[in-house]
Every structure is written in structure tokens, then in C-alpha cells.
């Protein structure tokens, strides 16, 4: 069944079963491999994208449930103010190790920052604990989010 989704500002039409998770449409059908597969059960956050700005696990999001919502992926997050700040902070703080989970981490962090320009440690825990990093870069992720929040300026 042909389904049209709005992806990074562009309409894309794909012909897959309606219950196909968005993750596989992105990676295998559209060739956008920046969004990663980690668990398939929304347990690790590697597949995180934004659906209308909300951090969403694409591995359990069926394509037919998206409707007219706007999807943003790691490939386009740098075009948002929060995403650009997060990416810069990630590089400044040397967060990344193997890097595989970092697309999802950045998507969760940029959704947090967009909705809460000055998150507390507790806000960071709440927003980021769904994203596993096997390299254990958590200490630096926390610092990077704080740096990005600083650069958001007063009042955000």
C-alpha cells in the first residue's frame, strides 16, 4: 500500500505493508541510514526520530500511524536551532566513541533542549535514560547538554 510521509520537509511515498515500522522505511527503503537499529522494542533509543518535534522510537512506529505529522531525522536535525547546538556541544565535549547510538542520543537531547532550554540534571535523566550507550558516554552527554543549554542564552 502506498503511504506518503512528510520527512525532513519533503513528501516521500513508499509502498510497504501499513504496519511496517518507520525505522525500516527510513533505512532500507529510503536509504537514510543515519537512524540506527538497536533493539526493535523501544528499549534502547538508537532509532529515535522526531515526530512533530517529539522524540519517538521509530522501531515501533508503524508507517500508517504517522499521517500528516512531520518527521525529522538525524540527517536534518542540524537545521534546527536546538539540533545545531547539540551537535556542536557533542563535538566540543568529545562525547562520541563508537558513535552508533549517538544519532538517537542527539535526537533525544535536541528534543529535550527544544522543549526545555535549561534542563536540570533530573530533566536530563528523564529525557535521556531511554537511550543506551554501550560505550558509556553518559558523563559527557550530560556535560554536552548543559553546554548546549548555556549557549541557548537566558530565557532560552
Amino acid at each position: 500500500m502506498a503511504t506518503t510521509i512528510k520527512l525532513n520537509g519533503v513528501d516521500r511515498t513508499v509502498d510497504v505493508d501499513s504496519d511496517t515500522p518507520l525505522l525500516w522505511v527510513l533505512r532500507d527503503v529510503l536509504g537514510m541510514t543515519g537512524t540506527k537499529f538497536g533493539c526493535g522494542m523501544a528499549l534502547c533509543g538508537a532509532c529515535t526520530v522526531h515526530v512533530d518535534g517529539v522524540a519517538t522510537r521509530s522501531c515501533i512506529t508503524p508507517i500508517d500511524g504517522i499521517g500528516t505529522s512531520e518527521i525529522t531525522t538525524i540527517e536534518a536535525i542540524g537545521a534546527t536551532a536546538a539540533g545545531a547546538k547539540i551537535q556542536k556541544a557533542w563535538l566540543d565535549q568529545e562525547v562520541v566513541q563508537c558513535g552508533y547510538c549517538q544519532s538517537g542520543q542527539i535526537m533525544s537531547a535536541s528534543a529535550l533542549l527544544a522543549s526545555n532550554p535549561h534542563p536540570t540534571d533530573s530533566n536530563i535523566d528523564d529525557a535521556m535514560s531511554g537511550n543506551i550507550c554501550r560505550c558509556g558516554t553518559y558523563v559527557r552527554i550530560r556535560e554536552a547538554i548543559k553546554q548546549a543549554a548555556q549557549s541557548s542564552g537566558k530565557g532560552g
Partner: protein
Amino acid sequence: MMLDQIASRPGDLDESESGLSRRTFLQSGAAAGGGLLLSLSLPFATGDAEAAEGFAPDAFIRIGSDGQIVLTMPYVEMGQGTYTSIPMLIAEELEVDLTQVRLEHAPPNEKLYGNPLLGGIQATGNSNAVRAAWQPLRQAGATARTMLVAAAAKRWNVDPASCRAQSGEVLHPPTGRSAKYGDLAADAARMTVPKNVALKRPEDFKLIGTPAKRLDVSGKVNGTAVYGIDVRPPGVKIATLAQSPVFGGRVKNLDDAAAKAVKGVRQIVRLDDAVAVVADHMGAAKKGLAALAIEWDNGPHAKLDTLAIAAELEKATLNPGAVAQTIGDTDKAMASAVTKVEATYQVPFLAHATMEPMNCTVHVRKDSCEIWVGSQAMAWVQAAAAKTAGLPLDKVTVHNHLIGGGFGRRLEADGVTRAVQIAKHVDGPVKVVWTREEDIQHDMYRPYWLDRLSAGLDAKGMPVAWNNRFAGSSVLARWAPPFFNNGLDPDTTEAAIDLVYALPNMHVEYVRVEPPGIPTAFWRSVGPSHNVFVTESFMDELAAAAKQDPVAYRLALLDKSPRAKAVLALAAKKAGWGQPLPERIGRGVSLQFVFATYMAQVAEVEVAKDGAVRVRRVVCAVDCGTVVNPDTVRAQIQSAVMFGITAALYGKITLKDGRVEQTNFDSYQILRMNEAPAVDVHIVQSSEPPGGMGEAGTSAIVPAVTNAIFAATGKRLRQLPVDTAALKQPV
């Protein structure tokens, strides 16, 4: 430590300070397209590499006429920062900015790219990339620089000694002349290769020891980095698979009608012990997999059970094993001991659970095979593919990619073998992606080990006898059989022997017992992941039996090990050791010398009334010799600590009825952001050769945590992971 000992055995490899430099040699020539090609050959895998390979290098520097410096990397990047630290070694001596160096993956070729500290196997592991490259790559950089200077001096008809190199240029200060490396490369290629070029003195280092920005990260924050799982050769199909849930089982019956009816499913591949669904995309492949009706013949391991395996190991420790180390006479010393302490420890099977699930892309053609994968052991990938495809080695092309977590899992080629088995039935390229459940249930596991220890203390409480006999799998006996000799291998025993402490009488034995059917493999910090937990927990027990402070007790045994003593004292000081803590919060310490690095950690741990454990803070002091990139050292320790806490608190693979019970991140938990402690790293300045950094932090944190739990609750934990039920506060 570990394998270096083997690599430097008499008759195996000439040894110098680095273990390499005497047989390192350099050759030069014109690079394709003009420029200087400097080959650096490290003939260790075979004795005749020099004669046989001529120009083909181990690692080579290529300086193009455009000034671009290309380094072929024999080590793979899996997050440990090697793509930054290795180029730093060359750039330091070559006098170029780090940003001028470009990296290429080395192709599989064991003769050329074999790792000297892994006995010539082309692999990245054992925390030894910097250790292996330390001397030869600096020498390569210095030699190239000397030739570039000589070329400039000849052109200007001046004394080379009056020239100097700086930021990719040769300068002649007396006349103000300068020439870029790119301009000089072709001339330099015609110069004689100088011998015995002097390396910089540590005080002259500009890059080494400074925090360099990583070179591999920009693509990792915007989705453009390509891991093995991201490759998309034209026409590629996606496959996923179900392997026999019981190790050694086979497919008995298969009904694939419903799977074939799933939209996007193209083909079902039935193997002896697995079934794969080939589809247009992973969504269809997974849906197809769920629709398969597979009946398995479970085979001989249908009743396999972790408890039975532990019982076998316990029995094995009742009989003598291979003697790994003997100092003095423990029987005699034990007879005169005032106090005796005995304990049995055990550690579970562990999965690697790399964030990038196992995957491999294969295109089998009539007379060739092409592989795309992220691997720690490229030459083995090629060999496994060739064997499975029935092709000669040179008909197998391997493209290596970034690795979404290695930790030892990608030192194995089982996933490649499986992918080629499937690809042989598929027309065109196929990417075989394991589900997370397959990844956890068909891992090759960190072995289960069981240790029986006893010690005798004198009237002052100090140890006069130390006995340790342990049983479990030898990974190295399978992975590299020549390393397994007289019932021993250097990995399994690392940190069980050669302790930093002065023990007058010590006896250590190892009994090799392979668990039936269960594949075992290296896992971050390998042998020490087990041995440091055991020895440092037991040392803590001895301090407790002697009613002494755990840090003071250890310090008293370290007079002959000043570097160990220094890191322990530093960690204790920085952690505020001895300062009072609230109820049910404790500090625990550990000390180790592994991968040629000294490390002490202090963990501060809180145990809730319900037994829940939270690591609040970790302080680490490290002496890893000369530091190449201090930020990488900090990052690796932060990383390794989280990895170790995961193992201490949650890590456990168990089997029941032959099946692994854990399936995904709900039943195989990984430490998360809300549980991650602050990690303070203190680096001891040193001019000793570099030690390994990728793994040491993992082995050190585990006993620091359990010793802290003892301090907080009085409960001694001798089995991992932590049993929180045992830590509940009595009402």
C-alpha cells in the same frame, strides 16, 4: 602484558624496548601520481616478510604532491580513539598538523598487517594498538621527515642540519627559504633511507600528551558515518535469521508458506541449523521470520543448564590443574599461619551486546565473493568467507567499516560465516542483520569461571600464603591455539598471577574446562575481567580478616611496586578515603596492573534498604606510561567504568533447557544515564612506554563496587552480578 609475553619469547621475535624496533625497517619509493611513499614493514607474522613483500607495507605513509599525508591503518576504530592516537604518533615526528593526516582502512593481509602483540594475527584487541605502534610509527614519521629535509637541503645546496621541519614545510631560516612537503615529496622519494634516525625527546613533544580532537567523529553526529550495517550495495536484499535456539541443534521441519506470503519477502533460505528470510527490507524480513513455523531437533545440549555448568567447574577445582605460578612454599606457610581465610568466587557468562547488532553483507558470485562488515579481525573475515564460499583467499574482497561497538565480539568471524552460508543461496548482494534477540542468544560469551582461594595470615594479619585454583574456558586455546601451552594461556591467567603485591608464598593453578556447546570469546578486559574481581575481592577479605583498613593493608604490600603504590595512594587521596559517610554508603577500592597499565579505583556506593545498589562516584588514578592523548585516556576510563558497572550490577547470561534465557535489553540490562556515576580520572605523569587503555577500567571497577558494598553493608559478594536480595536491610 598478556600476549606480548608470547610475542617476545626467544626465537619468536627479536626484542627491544618496544619489542619491535630492531626488525622494523623502512623503504621508500615514488607514490603513484608522484610523491613519497614510505613503507614500514613489521615482519613478525612470518620470518620472511621482508624478502617476500618488498614494498608492501604494514602501515605506510604516503605523501602526495598535494601535500596530503595518508596513513593506512592496520587497527580498527570502534570508539577507542585509535584513529586519533595512532596518527598522532606519526604527525609528531613528521612535523605536520594532525588535520593533514588522512586515514585508510588496511585491507586484510596478515603478513603485512598482523599485530605484533597478538602474535601476528591481524586484529585490534587486547588494548595494544598504541603499544604496538609506539616505536615503529614514530620512527616512520621521523624517517620521512629526515628525507624531506634532505631533499630540500639538496635542492637549496645547503647543509641539512641548517634546515628544520615545521607544520608540513621544510624551512631554511638563514635564507628564509621554505618548501612544502608536497613539493618535496617526489625528490624525497629518491633519497637514501636513513638509518637510526633519532626520535624526539619527550620534552620536545608537541602533540603527544596533549588532548587532540578526535578525527573520526564529525560523521557520527550527523548520520553520515557508515557502519557495517549501513552499507547498501546496488540491489542489496535484507535478510534476518533464526538460529537453533539450542546450541548444536538443527532444523527438523520448516513450514514457510505464511512467511513467503508476506509482502516484500523474496526468499527463504534453509540451512542445517538456521533459517533466513530474505526480503526487500528488514521490516518484511522480521515479519516473515515471525511467520515461519520451525521445528527444531535440539540435539545433544537440550538439557544444558548454567547451574550444572557451575557444578562441573566447582568439581574441577577439587583436582590439581596446570600450575600458572608458584612462589615459595604455600603448604609450609599455611601450616604456620595464625589465621586462615577461604572463599569460592564465580562469575557468569556475559554477552557483548554491542549497540550495532551483528551483521554482514555478502555478494557471492560464481568465482568471487565480496564482504562488507565492521570487524576487529579483518584477515579472519577473509579466511572465514573463503572457506565457506569454497574460494581461494585472493578471490574474497573485504571492505571494513566503522564498528558500532566491538568489545571482543567482532574479533570473531562467526557472523561472516553465517552470512556467506546464506548468501550462497541468494542471487545478488544480501545484508544479513541479526535481531537483538539473536545477537544476545547467539553471542560467543565471556566464560563462566569459578575460583577456589585460600590464604594464611601471620600474627600481624599479613598474608604469608596465597592459593588460587580456578576453572573455566580458555578462549585463547580456540582463538589462537599456539598460545595455549602446558594447560595454560596468558590471557586466562592475567591478573591471577604476577600480582602487584609482595606475597612470599603464592600458588596459582588453572583447570581448563570447556562448557559443552557454549561458544566462549574475548570480552572487554578479557582474563582480568574475572581475575581482578577475584583477587581484589579476596585481598579485601584478608584486610577485613586482619581488621585493617583495605587501602593501608594493600599499601603495606607494595614496597616493591612503586608505580602501583603511587596510583593507589593517589586514588585514595582524591576519593577522600577514610572520611565518614552516611549509613549504607561505602567506599571500595581496587588495584591492578593489566595491559601494562597501573590503575586504582575507589567506588562510592549506596545500598538502599531494599538492596538496590547505586554507584554514586568513581575516582580512578592511572599510570599508563607515556600518555598519547589524555582526553582519550579519560574517555576510555569513563567508558570502561560504565561497562564494568553494567557487568557488576546486571550482567548475566543463563541457560535453561539448552536455551539462553535473556533476549533483549529488558532481560539483559545495560547501565543508563540516570544510573551513571561521575567518574574522576587522575593521570600520573610518566615517561615509561605507553600501556593499554581500552579495557583496564572495566576490570578495576567491579571489585571496587563489591568492596564498597561490603563497606556499606558488611555483605561480601562472591558471585556476580550483585544479588540485591541479599542486600536488603534486615527489619
